[in-house]
């Protein structure tokens, strides 16, 4: 079964421990959505995914990974 995972928590830590609130403001979403993303409980739209990646100054695939199970 396919799954989309992310490295948001790791990237926040690597970016001077950016807060969830700060990332939410930069990406234009609520803090609760960042929490849901980090917990793997929500898959964002392409637009939000790009905004999050740009907030960290990295490419989309450095944040989100598409994993296909065997």
């Amino acid at each position, binding site marked *: 079964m396919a799954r989309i995972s992310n490295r948001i928590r790791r990237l926040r830590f690597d970016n001077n421990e950016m807060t969830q609130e700060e990332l939410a*403001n930069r990406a234009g*979403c609520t803090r*609760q959505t960042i929490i849901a993303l980090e917990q*793997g409980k929500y898959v964002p*739209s392409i637009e939000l995914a790009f905004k999050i990646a740009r907030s960290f100054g990295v490419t989309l695939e450095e944040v989100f990974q598409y994993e296909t199970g065997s």
Partner: protein
Amino acid sequence: MAPLQKRALYSLAIGLIMAGVLAAVLVIKGDVTAFFEDENMRYILYAVLIGVPLVYLVLVNITLRKPTQIDERDKAIIEKSGKAQWVAIVLSLAVWNIALTEVYWEQRQVPVDFLTLIFVSVLIISPLAQSFGILTGYWRIGKNG
């Protein structure tokens, strides 16, 4: 708790209180016809009928315009809550239909007061069901992802 989730919770509580107050007033007045014979009560009800949808519309628009209050995840939940709203309205109309048909079968006519009462019930049930749909939407996201 997300801002929209909080609002849905408040809305559910206020809606339940409103429904309770309306039911209490009808019980105190004795029956539906007696309630509508009171001119003041009728005018208050007309004001509520026009005022509630307008206030609801303005509040929803204000909420939807704030990007920090609501985002794509919340909007997806709002869209899905429409299903709960639709089911609740259809069910309530079905209950009205069956109840009035059974009660007034012999007379072959239903008092006109019920038209307003049906509208008021839909007016209360609609935001209640939407709030319920929003709250279950957040619960489902939290549970299943």
